[in-house]
C-alpha cells in the first residue's frame, strides 16, 4: 500500500514541477473513485461529472501546497467531499424539491432508488457488464496469475510479500501480475471501445 503511495508521490512531484500530463494520469487513476464518491451526494450523472471536473481543477490549483503529509487520495477525497457538500448547499432548494419528487415516486411505484447507482440504464448496463467481464476473465486465469493479481489488488500486498507467499522470484511476481492485467484488459477493451464509439 505504501509503495502505491510512492507512485502517487512521484506523479505529484512531477505536477509540482509543472508537468500537467502527470496530473492527467492521477485523474485517470482516481476519476472513478471520485465519481462514485460524488454519486453518493448527487444523483444526476451529468451533474456528477461537472462536480468531479471542478474537484480535479481545484486539486490541480492547490497541489502546490500539498506537502504529502497525507496520501494524495486522502487529500483529494476531502476536497471531493467538501465540494459535493458545497454543491448540495448551493443547490439546496432544487435538491429538496427533487428529493420530494423521488419520495413521492417511491410511494407511488415502490421503486427502490439507489443513491450511488448511475442514473441511465445504459451506464448501469455498461458498468455491470464491465464488472462481469472482469470477474469472468479472473475465473479463466491460470491459478498462479489469479493468485498473484488477487494478492496485489484485493489484499494490497507488495511484490516482495507476494513473492514470499508464492515462493517465487520478485521478477516472476511482477510478470504474473502484468500478464493477468493484460489478459483481463484484452477482455474488456472491446466493451470500452464500443462505449467510446457510442459516446461520440
Amino acid at each position, binding site marked *: 500500500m505504501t509503495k502505491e503511495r510512492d*507512485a502517487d508521490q512521484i506523479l505529484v512531484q512531477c505536477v509540482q514541477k509543472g508537468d500537467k500530463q502527470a496530473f492527467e494520469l492521477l485523474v485517470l487513476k482516481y476519476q472513478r473513485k471520485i465519481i462514485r464518491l460524488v454519486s453518493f451526494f448527487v444523483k444526476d450523472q451529468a451533474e456528477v461529472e461537472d462536480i468531479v471536473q471542478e474537484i480535479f481543477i481545484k486539486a490541480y490549483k*492547490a497541489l502546490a501546497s500539498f506537502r504529502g503529509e497525507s496520501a494524495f487520495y486522502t487529500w483529494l477525497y476531502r476536497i471531493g467531499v467538501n465540494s459535493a*457538500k458545497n454543491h448540495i448547499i448551493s443547490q439546496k432548494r432544487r435538491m429538496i424539491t427533487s428529493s420530494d419528487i423521488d419520495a413521492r415516486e417511491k410511494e407511488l411505484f415502490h421503486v427502490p432508488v439507489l443513491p450511488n447507482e448511475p442514473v441511465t440504464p445504459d451506464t448501469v448496463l455498461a458498468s455491470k457488464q*464491465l*464488472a462481469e467481464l472482469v470477474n469472468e476473465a479472473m475465473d479463466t486465469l491460470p491459478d498462479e496469475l489469479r493468485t498473484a493479481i488477487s494478492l496485489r489488488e484485493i489484499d494490497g500486498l507488495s511484490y516482495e510479500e507476494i513473492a514470499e507467499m508464492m515462493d517465487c522470484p520478485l521478477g516472476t511476481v511482477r*510478470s504474473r501480475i502484468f500478464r493477468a492485467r*493484460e489478459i483481463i*484488459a484484452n477482455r474488456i477493451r472491446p466493451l470500452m471501445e464500443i462505449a467510446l464509439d457510442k459516446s461520440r
Partner: protein
Amino acid sequence: MDLNNNKSQIQEQISAFMDGECQSHETSVALASLRQEAYQKDWEIYHQIGDILKSNEMGIRVSEDFNSRLNARLRTTEPDPHKIFQFLPKHQHLRIVYALAAMLTLFAILIPRFAGNDGAEVAAPYLTAQFTSANFPSHSDATLIAAGQKDVSTRSDSEPDMLRDPLIDSYLAAHQRYSSSMVSAVEYETGPIILETGKR
C-alpha cells in the same frame, strides 16, 4: 515482433509503476511512455481492473468527453502556489461562531438562576413536578422530593412500603446523576434526590 516485445516490456513497466514497484531507472521510462495516449489507456484500464476487483460497484464508466474537457481546462489553468485548500465551507466558520455565542448566552442566563441556595429553591419544585408527572406505579403523587426541600414530606406512616428490587434505587440514582439532561445537572448541584423510602 520486437515492437510487440518492446510494447509488452513498457506495459509491464507501467504495471509495476502503478504498484510502486518500479526500479528507479525504470520510473523515468515508464513516465515518458505514459505521455503516449496508447499507454495512458493501458494505465486507465489497469487501474479500472484493480478498482473492479476491489468492488463490483467500481465498473463506473466515464463519458468520453470527460477527459478531453478536463484536459482542455487544465491546459488553461495555472496552479496557485498560495492556495491552501480550506476543508471547512466558508459559512461553516460562521455556524461555529453562532453556536458558541448561543451556548454562552444560554449559560449566562441559566447559571445565575441555578447557582447557590436560590437555585435549589428554583430547582426543587421543578424536579418534583417532573417526577410526579412520570406516573410511577402506585405512587403517582409526590414520590420523589429534592433534598433541598427539607421541610417537605409527603409520606405518611400508614402508606405501605413499595415492593421493588432494592437495586432499582441505586440504578435510578446513578441514572439521575449521570444523565445529561438539565434536570440531572440541577439535581447534581442541589444534592441527591431522596426517594420516599429513604434508603439512599
